[in-house]
């Protein structure tokens, strides 16, 4: 009987505890319990004070919610659930007794019409499992990342030394090219003199013949010859003016246009490049826009008879959708389609920048052709301009250093180049030396085979030089980028990540651009912009324009994973894309420690339970 009573009492007490927890701790996190001790308690915002009786009395006395941590009375209050078995959480007071179980221990619904099961054990276990997995991923990821970082460092060093090597080679080659040019000039001058001499001789003979005739007829005219001679001198003094002096001289122009003369042409071609890009855009725009704009035009004029009923319907619909009037279906689920976009005028130039072909080769290859032709070939090369500038700047140094190092041969260059790699350079130098030694500048008539050899060597060397210069510029371009604190993103430079989502294939090339492809058509989602949120996000911006919307952009969120995998491409706002890339590059040790600590904390709160 007595036992039964005690039992009943206990039961009552238990029931009471379950339905109405003690008011003096209800919703209060352990670290704050001290704050609530004492007879009179201050509102945290200083707006007033309240008595112990008013703590959790379901009436809001402090507008900031200090007095009601355990009820819904103050809108700004927060409720703490212990969630034994799982992680404690703090929830908005708006969740307290609202009929929805928010805390896994059910403590937020102590006075409502729902009964919440305590799910902390299961939820906690699941959460721990999840965290464990994450920790495991991080552990492996950290290792992979370390390796990546090592590799990146090596690769970076290699690229840097390659760059230095290339720069060294460039210097040498430049010297050779200069020298050969010098030679070539001399040869050409000699040839020219020879030719003139020959001409003179012929002329003299002819004149003499004519004289004889003229003796009978009248006076001679020798002024032309003098003119020609003067012009030639002029050309050599100031080559820049050559291009302007096209006025019908018999002199062979091509042979006289020198390096810096070509440079002038290039400057010209760069500006022309701008013009042609403009022209290209103008050509392109009406093509892409024509459907919409003609329809618009037709309709805004008073006579849209030209439109079929269907065209009219599509046209009007397109105002709301921004979609192409030519599309057959409006069923496009994600609204990805946007055929109407305005083309990006600078795109081609950019593509060149990214892919860095070997433009110099082509252009130098065409060096001997007509000036006009050269101009065309240079059109697309933005870089020539720059490299040419560099070349001009360094010109004197090169010549000087080359001279001083003249006899040191390859030994000197072994610092700059790895052994074995210098062989072609050695060869070239050797050949050039040979050429120099063999060629006798003062020998007349000019040895024709020698002359053509010099020309050939000159062509070879300049083509090689331009290749090197292009390599230098692409490598320098690469090394300019931000590869992360530990250069952990170094390997991203030459990689693209792809994923298929529905009918689209998304391709993300870090440091370059991102595209969305459907069949053969490809949409630029953005060009590389930068890392954001301390290397957690890759941002691509200024992609193809959306009709009636913004330029497309993409944010790729980086998540720790064991391999590089692109996933979850989405378009939450029109033309603003997001994606997730799993990569070991972001599996950082600090985060691993943090997760490990969290896991430890979670597990330690599971005395006995956890290991069962």
């Amino acid at each position, binding site marked *: 009987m007595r036992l039964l009573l005690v039992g009943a009492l206990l039961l009552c007490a238990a029931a009471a505890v379950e339905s109405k927890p003690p008011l003096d701790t209800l919703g209060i996190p352990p670290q704050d319990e001290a704050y609530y001790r004492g007879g009179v308690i201050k509102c945290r*915002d200083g*707006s007033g004070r309240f008595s112990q009786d008013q703590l959790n009395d*379901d*009436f*809001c006395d402090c*507008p*900031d919610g200090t007095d009601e941590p355990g009820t*819904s*009375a103050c*809108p*700004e209050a927060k409720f703490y659930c212990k969630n034994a078995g799982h992680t404690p959480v703090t929830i*908005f*007071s*708006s969740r307290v007794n609202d*009929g*929805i179980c928010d805390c896994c221990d059910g403590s937020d619904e102590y006075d409502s019409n729902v009964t919440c099961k305590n799910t902390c054990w299961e939820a906690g276990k699941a959460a721990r499992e999840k965290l464990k997995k994450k920790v495991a991923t991080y552990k492996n990821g950290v290792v992979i990342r370390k390796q990546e970082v090592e590799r990146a460092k090596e690769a970076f060093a290699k690229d840097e030394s390659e760059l230095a090597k290339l720069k060294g080679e460039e210097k040498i080659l430049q010297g050779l090219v200069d020298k050969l040019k010098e030679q070539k000039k001399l040869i050409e001058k000699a040839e020219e003199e020879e030719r003139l001499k020959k001409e003179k001789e012929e002329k003299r003979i002819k004149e003499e013949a004519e004289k004889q005739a003229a003796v009978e007829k009248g006076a001679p005219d020798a002024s032309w010859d003098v003119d020609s001679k003067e012009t030639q001198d002029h050309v050599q003094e100031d080559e820049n003016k050559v291009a302007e002096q096209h006025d019908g001289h018999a002199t062979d122009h091509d042979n006289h246009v020198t390096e810096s003369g070509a440079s002038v042409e290039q400057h010209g071609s760069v500006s022309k490049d701008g013009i042609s*890009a*403009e022209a290209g855009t*103008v050509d392109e*725009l009406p093509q892409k*826009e024509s459907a919409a*704009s003609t329809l*618009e*035009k037709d*309709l*805004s004029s*008073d*006579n849209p008879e030209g*439109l079929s009923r*269907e*065209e*009219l*319907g*599509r*046209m*009007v*619909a397109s*105002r*709301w*959708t*921004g979609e192409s009037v030519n599309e057959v*279906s*409006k*069923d496009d*689920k994600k*609204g990805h389609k946007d055929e109407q976009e*305005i083309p*990006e*005028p*600078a795109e081609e130039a950019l593509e060149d920048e990214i892919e860095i072909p070997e433009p110099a080769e082509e252009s130098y290859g065409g060096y001997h052709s007509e000036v006009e032709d050269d101009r065309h070939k240079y059109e697309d090369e933005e870089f020539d301009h720059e490299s040419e500038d560099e070349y001009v700047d360094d010109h004197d140094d090169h010549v000087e250093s080359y001279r001083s190092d003249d006899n040191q041969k390859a030994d000197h260059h072994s610092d700059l180049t790895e052994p074995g790699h210098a062989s072609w350079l050695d060869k070239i130098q050797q050949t050039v030396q040979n050429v120099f030694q063999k060629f006798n500048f003062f020998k007349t008539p000019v040895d024709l085979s020698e002359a053509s050899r010099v020309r050939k060597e000159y062509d070879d060397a300049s083509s090689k030089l331009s290749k090197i210069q292009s390599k230098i510029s692409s490598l320098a371009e690469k090394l300019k980028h931000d590869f992360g604190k530990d250069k952990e993103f170094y390997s991203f430079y030459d990689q693209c990540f792809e994923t298929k989502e*529905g009918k689209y294939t998304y391709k993300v090339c870090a440091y370059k651009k991102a595209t969305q492809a459907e069949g053969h058509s490809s949409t630029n989602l953005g060009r590389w912009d930068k890392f954001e949120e301390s290397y957690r996000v890759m941002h691509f911006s200024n992609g193809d*324009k*959306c009709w*009636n919307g*913004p330029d497309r952009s993409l944010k790729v969120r980086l998540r720790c994973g064991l391999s590089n995998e692109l996933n979850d491409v989405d*378009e*939450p*706002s*029109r033309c*603003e894309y997001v994606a997730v890339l799993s990569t070991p590059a972001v599996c950082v040790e600090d985060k691993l420690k943090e997760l490990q600590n969290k896991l430890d904390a979670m597990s330690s709160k599971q005395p006995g339970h956890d290991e069962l």
Partner: protein
Amino acid sequence: MDPPPRRLAAPLLLLLLLLAAAFAAARAWKKDEFRNCNQTPFCKRARTRAPHSLEAPLSLAAGSLTVAPDGSISAELSHPSRPRPLVLRLSALPPHALRLQIDEDYSTATPPHRRFHVPDVLVPDLEARTLHLPEPKTAAGVSTVALSSDLDVVVKHDPFELTVRRAGSGDPVLSFNSHGLFDFEPMRESKPEDETWEEHFRSHTDKRPRGPQSITFDVSFYGADFVYGLPEHGSTSLALLPTRGPGVEESEPYRLFNLDVFEYLHESPFGLYGSIPFMIGHGDRASSGFFWLNAAEMQIDVLAPGWDGATAQENGQIDTLWMAEAGVVDAFFFVGSEPKDVIKQYISVTGTPSMPQQFATAYHQCRWNYRDEADVDGVDAGFDEHDIPYDVLWLDIEHTDGKRYFTWDRSAFPNPEEMQRKIADKGRKMVTIVDPHIKRDSSFHLHQEATDKGYYVKDANGNDFDGWCWPGSSSYPDMLNPEIREWWADKFSYENYKGSTPTLYIWNDMNEPSVFNGPEVTMPRDAMHYGDAEHRELHNAYGYYFHMATADGLLKRGEGKDRPFVLSRAFFAGSQRYGAVWTGDNSADWDHLKSSIPMVLTLGLTGLPFSGADVGGFFGNPEPDLLVRWYQVGAFYPFFRGHAHHDTKRREPWLFGERRTAIIREAIHMRYSLLPYFYTLFREASVNGIPVMRPLWLEFPDDKETYNNGEAFMVGPSLLAQGIYEEGQKSVSVYLPGKESWYDLRNGSPYKGSVTHKLQVLEDSIPSFQRAGTIVPRKDRFRRSSTQMVNDPYTLVIALNSSGAAEGELYVDDGKSYDYQQGAFIHRRFVFADNKLTSFNIAPDNLGKKFASDCVIERIIVLGLRSGAKKAIIEPGNQEVEIESGPISLRSGSSPVAPTIRRPNVRIADSWTIRIA
């Protein structure tokens, strides 16, 4: 109107110009695509006619005047040059309404077609309520009929003219044809050789096989300073400003023609999505109303004084000219002593607004489009993460399988039931869109069925009308036909609408109807409907019938127990019976924010209390500050929904930084705390049509200062708010009407009445006040949605007037069912006087069902109480409770400003008194 030019990657002038042209073309309202009055023969004809210049003015044949057995008066109107007389009928509706009907005489074989009478708009018992009119007294070509003890109808015979006047003073109130502009083009059997009936507009031809049949007349409002009404037009003016006459430059009449207008102007008399041919005249001496039940295109001129060349200004008279393309005269004259009486009478003719469910009065979140289930989940979770309540998540057209309504794009929404259940678990609802255009796809069962049954509107050649809309080639069910409405309603059953659940409600869009390749983006006027009616005759009511059928569908689905929620874009007189409307595709600019207030107020005046504008503006990206201001204003709209076009950036309330998130949260919280007050106002509206959001003059009809105030507005009788409509505005002038003071809702500071106050503009709220003498019920605990607030305790905010008194009401029911119609509701009147607050029951006792609630009042704030009392005594029970100084709102940092009765915990269901000791 053009947006600023976009940033361009290349500074190429030509490209820029091309782009600018493209955007200008794409973004501007296209004036050319809409017919103006000059391009509309009936309008041009009528508008250019001088007063009293009609060739064949109609006159009443004195001998034909008789009182019919049903108590109405009938007569014939004729002119010797007309082929046959017209039939006139006058009837009286209590208390102060007169109905005038004029139609052709169909007793002979001609005319060949019956003119269209708009069916199913007037309340069914109207005829039964008609009063028996006494025999008219005729003398000197004038007949007088006593309409009531204080109103007479005076009918002049030749030419016919009708005046409603006050019996005692003889002062006219309203008159018909006092300027001799009444013209009624008779229907003709066939087209004379020398006439062209066809009309052309742009690439469209209207065959007009029945020829001209327009009706024109003038109506004068006496004692009116302004006229109001005639939605829907973009306007920043609350009053209808003159459209013709001295001082008016070039202008169009107000056009009533339901159209889907792309990027409409915030200020234009051109017609938008809905039409209500109801006008209210108001001055400090009189209020009156005129309603013309006609669903054809209508053009109405508000004429500036002196328009007719008359130099003598008749005091306080406003003349108006009404022109319609077809139909009959079925006109109502409403006379009120107060403007509210006029609205009540209009409502007594067109029906009381439906009582919304509780959730529908809370906040709605919409976007074109929440794309898939994950998106829905994410947005739903976003609100919870930021502790912002919302009740309804909406899905626009992309949720369907290829714009086939009643279907789901299963790749994006594989489990719609599960999705709705998850939302419903938090007490929230969902809404999907169902438009009237049906995809012409033989594999689509709905299309197949409608085709087989012949349920589509026909084109002029009798084939199913085929127009272009979202799904491409589409046809439109003929909603005029009750049988087809019935069929349509059945499509909303759970069985027919796969993937729908009881917490799914409906949105009707594009029901003007919008036809992308039709004339003016709508259906050709010569399309044919049920009963041999031409589309021109019922155009403005098509959307109304569609709305009606959809609401009936939800009613059927819920077996008559669940109040439907259907939002419609198109509307007509009577739409209030079927649900909410909104102001359509507005734009994200400050002007549209500003015009939303006159637009919503006008809807309220014309019987549609449940309306709002898209918060944030549909087209374009609002500047964050504009979005914030829009939430602050929108929180007072009766229908409160955020919505956005699919080209816009995401704009869920938490996306604009913490500070702005907090301000928007505050605005939405304010709405939620006022939900008990709003619900009480919706109850009032559902009984007598008095709008929830009201022009100031509706509450202060004698205060001329208020007559054209479209920037400030009342919510119910107790609250006044003033929007902020300019970026970076530092100060604002707010006129507070009436003799009594006003209390700032944020800090309880008092402001004098009848004064324009220059106030500093605050970032975190718009100026809003509680009128002294009122009591506002609130719930100050915030929840995820209104569903979780049901059992939360109330706060009463009492603002005492100069005599220390105040009163207010609280209406509560289950928020969902129709049980309230059997008496299952709590309706209390709170009266504070002589330091004593009393709760009176004002619900009738004798109805069948009861609504039980254990809700209590946890806090009573008494603004303006001078007593320093520390205690209050509750009776019955003689229980003592504390009074202490408390803040007016529970926000961190708010300071105590008013005596607050702490935890009286009296039940709202009970009668009690609380005496301040």
